């Protein structure tokens, strides 16, 4: 089988051609300008993943929303559940980029980390 896709691992956006057998044990990727493209194409056929960015509620801080992201790409079908969980979370300031807001989501090894620094309101 054959599938054409665009690599989204960097802004160059290489056009990839993926040829694979029925059982997915033999996958060949062409058109990629770097190794990341091959990894992306394989994952896209086997189990597509995406990095998720969102905001969570922040208390006691100078800001009311804290931007966050997954520290690696998460299986696409788990994204909706992750977002539901994130909208329930409340983080309290102070917080720094890299601080974990969620650890090992559903056993995937994916963590969610803060991406912005925010002092507490009383720090001023």
């Amino acid at each position: 089988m054959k599938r054409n896709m665009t690599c989204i691992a960097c802004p160059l956006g290489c056009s990839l051609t993926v040829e694979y057998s029925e059982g997915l044990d033999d996958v060949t990727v062409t058109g990629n300008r770097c190794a990341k493209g091959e990894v992306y194409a394989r994952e896209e056929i086997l189990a597509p993943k995406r990095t998720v960015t969102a905001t969570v509620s922040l208390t006691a801080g100078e800001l009311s929303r804290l931007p966050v992201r997954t520290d690696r790409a998460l299986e696409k079908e788990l994204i909706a559940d992750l977002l539901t969980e994130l909208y329930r979370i409340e983080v309290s300031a102070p917080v720094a980029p890299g601080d974990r807001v969620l650890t090992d989501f559903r056993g995937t090894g994916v963590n969610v980390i803060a991406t912005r620094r925010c002092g507490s309101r009383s720090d001023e």
Partner: protein
Amino acid sequence: MKIRRIDVLVIGAGASGLTSAIKLAEMGYEVSVVERENTLGGILNQCIHSGFGLHYFNEELTGPEFADRLIGLLPDALYLAPNATVDRLIDDENGLGALVFSPESGITRYSSRAIVLAMGCRERNRGNIHIPGSRPSGVYTAGLAQRLVNIEGYIPGKDVVIVGSGDIGLIMARRMSWVGAKVHCVVEIQPYPSGLTRNIVQCLNDFNIPLHLSHVVTKINGNDRVQSVEISPVSREKERGPGSFTVECDTLLLSVGLVPENELTRKFGIAMNHETSGPKVDSRLMTSKPGVFACGNVLHVHDLVDYACEEAERCAKGVDEFLRGVAPETGGPVVSGANVRYVVPGAYNPGSDNRFYLRPMIVKNKSRLSVRAGEVEIYGKNLPHVQPSEMVEATLSKDALKACSGQTLEVRIE
């Protein structure tokens, strides 16, 4: 009125202003950065998606992370005035400078030997694209909606139509989907999408959001709130002919382009470049007013923050030469030729390598960038793909520029 005397005043604490300030402070100058918001980082703070810093930090970061890295590089000696707005630039008996208003410290007259303009850009709005119909609420620019969702935490609507397929519109299509809104479609007047293919894939295709190319929104319906919009193919724009359809929605997001923010610049009488809507600059990025420099989105709209930072570093170098009284070697003008909307800067200096940024006017695979002095090509490179939304970079060597010094350079894409 308080007077503050410094070497360099930087206006705007976005990626460009911060980068130039960091470099100038490292060179030993006394620098002040004035910023009208109460946070540093500019537009980066609302761009919570990743895709920043691949060149500058060799890592893919989100906007706020990129800003945090820059803020971490700020030297202690730098004077930062957040919540302070530059009202106007001045040149009088106290020298070059600016009037700055702030709720905390009132009016301050800054007096500096040089100024770096880094005010960024603003969005085009409905008035700029003339959509007829009523004036209900629910029509937002995409960047404003991005700020509302990502910083304020408000969701502007539940049923969304987006006008314009630039990267900001695409990123907002995904963002609105992830906060639970239904994005019905993206409408694009051009026959091709204007954002990156990767964003079409991950922001539209992943959510099965249709993209209507060569279509426009011809009417907005609704009294208090948007109720629906009418969409028509471009050729039948005038009358509601076959192929037109209506989409019910409560929100219309406009992602129809950015314009450099140059009110201050114009009022000060600085010569403008009509192709970029930014000031005209020489090879050091100095405007027509000696001592006033510009970099980042105020000079021309950048699609990558990495390029804005690179330009800001170059700008700091230009300021340093100016303050040390080093005159640049003047090579000649650089002008845009076939298929090039603009090239910045519009002059070259044969005394060093020179970097240029240019904006293509066409969509083409396997094209070629060519820089000519008369009929002689002095620089060329193959470009696998060009499109107007992707800026092109070209670095010409000192030797190539020396050889043609005095002549006009023409940049074209063929």
